């Protein structure tokens, strides 16, 4: 994992799959092995992997990827409302719909590059968010978010004679309920597929082409080569990943809210990717897991829990420890997050993956040179 040259892609893939599938076990000591958080790990992993296909390979920094996530969610919930509670159509329609949106937005935005491209994608996403929150409320249910109701038609379910009780139906995969662990496993399987595809793309001639565009687009253009279709393809693929992530959010929890499309949500995936290591295969997944972990676990500590944790200490020391640590957790978890961003970027320019690489390098002095090449390649994105 630390040195692609030493590990074949297949080994990496198998290790990755095993790590993902056994998450309920090895996350237990971290207190993170409950279904919702594991689902979030997988879903945001997919989102970040998709984002990385665009940003990591081509260097095009999209600031509006959350729009596709939102589109995916809305499409999935509408599929649940109108067609069936089965998740398969929801997943398919969401990916297609996000792809269509990405095609349109990408077609326009890719006419520009650099920060101009970033602002164009940001503008489209903010327009989607603002409209979804207000004017488009009939489609999105605005602030309250699009939810299932007892009065939904669900034509396919109705045709199949599924009984409608007085309680809301839950999403299912041919009868298997998609909440809790089964919900995690479908996300995990999707993540593994997404990871595999991304790996294939990274290694394919298409991926090479994208990297070439990143290193010098002008030169590519001089050779009479039209880069736009390649970029657009990358943009659409990464939009479809976001759509898949969005629909999985709806699958595990059938609600779609407008704030999923806000610029802060787009910013979050950028941060996840850079934090983990843009342009690396594993980095984005790691980055997303760290941010989601901080958001869900760090934010939950309150002083009474901290006091319990430092119970073993003598009184005075306990108070100091509680006071110090409460500056970083609970309602101050944003502070920790900001500090983490700074520390990682200052000391590990290539993200956490570079940290691993450096640690790996310490152990393998002889390979240090190769590691250096790798890391500078990873750091050369912009």
């Amino acid at each position, binding site marked *: 994992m630390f040195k692609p040259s030493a590990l074949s892609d297949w080994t990496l893939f198998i290790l990755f799959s095993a790590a993902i599938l056994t998450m309920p076990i090895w996350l237990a000591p971290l207190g993170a092995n409950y279904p919702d958080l594991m689902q979030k790990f997988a879903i945001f992993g997919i989102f970040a992997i998709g984002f990385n296909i665009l940003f990591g390979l081509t260097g095009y920094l999209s600031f509006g990827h959350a729009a596709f996530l939102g589109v995916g969610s809305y499409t999935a919930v509408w599929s649940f409302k109108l067609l069936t509670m089965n998740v398969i159509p929801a997943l398919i329609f969401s990916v297609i719909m996000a792809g269509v949106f990405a095609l349109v937005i990408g077609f326009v935005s890719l006419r520009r590059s650099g920060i101009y491209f970033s602002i164009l994608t940001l503008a489209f996403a903010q327009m989607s968010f*603002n409209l979804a929150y207000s*004017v488009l409320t009939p489609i999105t249910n605005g602030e309250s978010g699009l939810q299932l109701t007892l009065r939904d038609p669900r034509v396919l379910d109705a045709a199949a004679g599924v009984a409608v009780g007085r309680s809301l139906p839950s999403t299912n995969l041919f009868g298997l309920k998609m909440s809790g662990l089964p919900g995690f496993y479908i996300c995990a399987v999707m993540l593994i597929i997404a990871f595999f595809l991304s790996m294939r793309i990274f290694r394919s001639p298409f991926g090479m082409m994208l990297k070439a565009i990143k290193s010098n687009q002008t030169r590519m253009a001089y050779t009479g080569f039209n880069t736009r279709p390649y970029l657009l393809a990358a943009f659409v693929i990464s939009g479809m990943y976001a759509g898949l992530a969005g629909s999985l959010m709806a699958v595990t929890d059938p609600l779609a809210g407008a704030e999923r499309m806000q610029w802060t949500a787009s910013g979050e995936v950028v*941060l996840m990717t850079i934090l983990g290591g843009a342009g690396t295969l594993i980095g984005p997944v790691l980055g997303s897991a760290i941010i989601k972990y901080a958001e869900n676990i760090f934010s939950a500590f309150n002083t009474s829990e901290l006091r319990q944790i430092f119970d073993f200490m003598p009184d005075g020391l306990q108070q100091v420890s509680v006071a110090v640590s409460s500056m970083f957790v609970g309602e101050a978890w944003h502070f920790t997050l900001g500090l983490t961003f700074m520390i990682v970027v200052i000391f590990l320019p290539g993200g956490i993956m570079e940290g691993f690489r450096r640690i790996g390098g310490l152990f393998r002095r002889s390979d240090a040179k190769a590691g250096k090449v790798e890391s500078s390649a990873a750091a050369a994105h912009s």
Partner: protein
Amino acid sequence: MDAILLQILNGLDKGAAYALIALGLTLVFGTLGVVNFAHGALFMLGAFCAVTLNRLLTISTKIKDESVTFFDAYKEVPILEAKFPTWGPVIVDYSVPLAILIAIPVMLLIGLIMERGLIRHFYKRPHADQILVTFGLAIVIQEVIKHSFGANPIPQLAPDGVAGSANVGAWFGMGDNIVYPWWRLIYLGFAMLIIGATFAFLKFTTFGMVVRAGMQDRETVGLLGIDIQKRFTIVFALASVCAGLAGVMYTPILPPNYHMGMDFLVLSFVVVVVGGMGSLGGAVLAGFLLGILQSFASMTEVKAIIPGIDQIIIYFVAVVVLLVLPRGLLGRKGVMED
């Protein structure tokens, strides 16, 4: 007609705020080549300079309200006002404009520290890294302010003399329906002054000339033996003062809270990009343009034709401008396109 004139005034006023924030942002882009996501936080810090000064001036003796027994309820009598009844209240009344005097050294210092301690090490780093580190810094600053001042907005009053509205219409003999708050007019004038001063400084001083040369071609200027580094530090500090002053003067219009910077961040980026990266004139032009368009888009007559247009107008204009003019209104080739 009155309504349209008023919306133009609104637009100018909004534009002044956008332009003032965007000015510093684009200056840092253009000279240092740094994407500073903490610029909004500097704006917010400026606002809190005003809050702090006001707090200091109104340090009070607390007279307990005896009718409340369960906790300490008290009426605050500012010591300054009690001790010096003649000029004490005047000082407190003018705390917002006085805060400018505090904000200039404070923001200068913060700018210097930020540039020396952090930004300088990121000149050669990819923009993505710059974004992440300055975004992290912005969050840290925000949380510190939240910790010290709470999350609720803290009202700041304009001086009594200019707290009301001016009858602008009467000045031009156009009836009584065009009234506009004094403070907003002052803000507009103040913004013009700062913008003008910045332009004059860059245009007419040797320092400014070197900086402008550095914006064009940093390496060559460096080769000439000029310590461009030192000048860049000062530029960053100046940008931070600009943002800070914009924040101080904005407090009577918008009671400051800890995340006001983040609210302005995205908007000011859009302004900078629409104006053209690194173009000072572009930022100012785009600021006023977007301000005025936003005001017009908010009119009921316009919203009746295109529902929700006020929600998206800024972004819509940004898309159109960038598609028609690849580098924004006044952008130069080659800036931030890598």
